[in-house]
């Protein structure tokens, strides 16, 4: 059998095994939870597609696949960048494969195929419900679904190659500096924020279009593969589909030819640390809490995938605050034009900031993966005499350290710029602290119940573990509920409502804290690591 095929089969098997571990997990109801999450995603995507189908006039119906495929393209670009770091550089079988009679292009190809397969799953959640509903609504010819499904296989290749190229550039730059991990973290975070900003600007540009031609033009220019696939599906145009296949194949071949040598050199460099002699040995005593917190900090900033996934929240809060502070006049205008009765709120900007803080703090707590990420080092903390409350407390402290200062600084700056009332300021400070506390505690509890130690790269834990899924979806739902309660359902006036929510969250945090104090040690003792 062809070696490339054998390798690709191996990579796909590894991908399926990792996913099966997520689905299977330790608990009997793990698979049920994942199925529930998948059903929820398909349901939401279907609902959104149906709403679009119902609201867009029939003569403009091509906008529906166009927008959903554009969203899938953007999603693959961002998620692809997250995964590219792990799939291209952090895989464990590099030495094994390198010792076999395989070319580096064959190895790179197998990793890329696995990556594309992973992205296909993400994009399928977005596009397949749309395609099915569109087919039902407009009774399209068979080529609509046929070309759509074939095109699906090729659509991720271009964004994936771009994401991989960016990941390679980040590694290349960071491998030449004094603090490679720090620079890699900063660059990766910058890239993710940059990609999100470009996507938002792009969305803004298309949103301001006056007619359909102006709407389609930026997509035709910048997202040509999306445009070709849409045309192929809507018009049954085979040549447009061939354009997509041709471009994707060309990009893939070029990527393999140009990047394989660099990729190989970078992988070799990533797997060796130069032994620098002559450093000074430092032997200092500190408390157990300080030692644990220092360890957590080192662990956190040593993981690019974790930093990328969890620092986006604080950075978005900071950006939101800067935008609100710098664009005061524009904000007032937007509020006046939005149609929402902001007079009901004493400090509408405070509400917007609070919404941003709550959402960003609650969707990705560091604690949701921090026990799993102990991985093969879990034996160290388990064999040392560390009380569970101190061990878990250090993880919680890190979550608070990374989230709360940014939120508090943003609140204090904006309270100065927009003259929040003292009560509002205090409540905002309390609510953001409580949000970080609640999400941190919840993340710990979930991770204790759904740990994942047998991963082959960290991104599997950070993005794909059951613990992450549960925490992200719960955090998202809870923050939406709170924000909706604050903005649209106010039996109490906003200040009293905020105080009531703060009280509720205090009780929630106390309950979860009490649970961890009581059960933390016994839950930890059930975990044996790798």
């Amino acid at each position, binding site marked *: 059998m062809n070696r490339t095929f054998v390798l690709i089969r191996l990579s796909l098997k590894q991908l399926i095994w990792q996913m099966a571990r997520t689905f299977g997990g330790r608990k009997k109801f793990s698979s049920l939870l994942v199925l529930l999450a998948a059903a929820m995603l398909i349901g939401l995507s279907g609902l959104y597609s149906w709403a679009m189908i119902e609201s867009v006039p029939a003569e403009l119906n091509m906008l529906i696949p166009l927008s959903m495929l554009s969203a899938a393209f953007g999603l693959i670009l961002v998620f692809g960048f997250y995964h590219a770091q792990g799939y291209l550089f952090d895989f464990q079988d590099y030495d094994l494969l390198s010792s076999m009679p395989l070319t580096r292009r064959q190895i790179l190809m197998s990793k890329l195929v696995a990556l594309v397969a992973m992205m296909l799953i993400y994009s399928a959640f977005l596009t397949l419900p749309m395609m099915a509903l569109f087919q039902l609504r407009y009774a399209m010819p068979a080529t609509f679904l046929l070309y759509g499904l074939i095109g699906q296989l090729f659509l991720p290749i271009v964004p994936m190659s771009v994401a991989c190229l960016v990941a390679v550039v980040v590694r290349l730059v960071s491998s030449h500096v004094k603090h490679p991990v720090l620079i890699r973290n900063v660059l990766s975070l910058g890239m993710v924020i940059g990609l999100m900003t470009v996507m938002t600007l792009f969305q803004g540009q298309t949103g301001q279009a006056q007619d359909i031609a102006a709407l389609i033009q930026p997509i035709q220019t910048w997202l040509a593969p999306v445009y070709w696939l849409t045309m192929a599906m809507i018009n049954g145009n085979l040549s447009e589909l061939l354009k997509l296949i041709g471009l994707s194949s060309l990009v893939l071949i070029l990527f393999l030819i140009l990047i394989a040598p660099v990729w190989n050199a970078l992988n070799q460099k990533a797997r060796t640390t130069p032994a620098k002699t002559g450093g000074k040995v430092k032997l200092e005593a500190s408390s*157990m809490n300080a030692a644990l917190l220092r360890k957590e900090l*080192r662990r956190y900033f040593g993981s690019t995938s974790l930093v990328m996934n969890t620092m986006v929240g604080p950075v978005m809060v900071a950006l939101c605050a800067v935008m609100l502070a710098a664009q005061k006049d524009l904000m007032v205008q937007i509020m006046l034009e939005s149609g929402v009765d902001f007079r009901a709120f004493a400090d509408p900007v405070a509400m917007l900031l609070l919404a941003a803080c709550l959402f960003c703090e609650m969707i990705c707590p560091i604690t949701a993966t921090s026990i799993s990420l102990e991985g093969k080092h879990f034996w160290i903390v388990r064999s040392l005499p560390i009380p569970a409350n101190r061990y878990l407390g250090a993880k919680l402290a890190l979550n608070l350290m990374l989230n709360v200062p940014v939120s508090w600084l943003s609140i204090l700056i904006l309270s100065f710029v927009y003259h929040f009332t003292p009560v509002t300021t205090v409540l905002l400070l309390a609510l953001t602290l409580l949000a970080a506390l609640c999400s941190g505690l919840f993340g710990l509890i979930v991770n204790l119940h759904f740990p994942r130690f047998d991963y082959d790269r960290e991104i599997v834990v950070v993005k794909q573990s059951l613990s992450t899924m549960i925490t992200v979806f719960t955090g998202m739902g809870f923050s939406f509920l709170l924000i909706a309660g604050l903005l649209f359902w106010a039996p109490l006036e906003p200040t009293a409502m905020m105080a009531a929510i703060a009280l509720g969250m205090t009780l929630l945090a106390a309950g979860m804290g009490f649970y961890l104090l009581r059960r933390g040690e016994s839950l930890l*003792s059930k975990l*044996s690591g790798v």
Partner: protein
Amino acid sequence: MLEIKGLVKRYGAKAAVDHLDLTCENGEIFGFIGPNGAGKTTTIKAVVGILDFDEGEIRIDGHSIRQEPLVCKQNLAYIPDNPDLYDIMRGDEYLNFVADIYQIDKETRIKRIQKYAALFELEGALAMPISSYSHGMKQKLALISAFLHEPKLLVLDEPFVGLDPKASFLLKKLMREHCDRGNTIFFSTHVLEVAQKLCDHVGILKDGRLAALGTMEEVTGNQSLEQVFLELADHE
């Protein structure tokens, strides 16, 4: 010092350790040997509180590992067969971390780290990232960390794997000295010559059960440990 009574650990329907009973007294080196998959590492992990077990009791210095894990862990040190240490730290940072957890004062830690680092010839590497260490260097660093708090019970899983001959010799010497101070060592090994020379007591585990237990003389008689082991391994 170490008391294991009726220990049972099951993985699904299979019992990896099946009603294991053994005792290690103060000042003795106990060699735990057995073929691959016999249940040695499972037993060791249960002893040090990493792995929960289904039945039985493990007591360290009179304290139950289940009821009082922190008291037990304060009195023991453990080195796994393949010590994965924090790659994010330097050697000195890792030793400081362990010393902070055991709350070893500055003077004592400096004295002990300097002593053991000099013995294992690791002084020059302590300021280097652990990710740059070889397997043997990691093993040496783990051993230094284990001796830092002068544990009453030292539990070692295959401690000689990866060590160079000089370090192996040194480790055997340190093990004997550690026990001569009244402490206990419980270790697993496949190097039967070492076990025969070093151990006061030996236990041979097969399919999760003890196939032989006693002093070295009681177990071997006038045979070598290797002969006894092979006979037991072949005997169904």
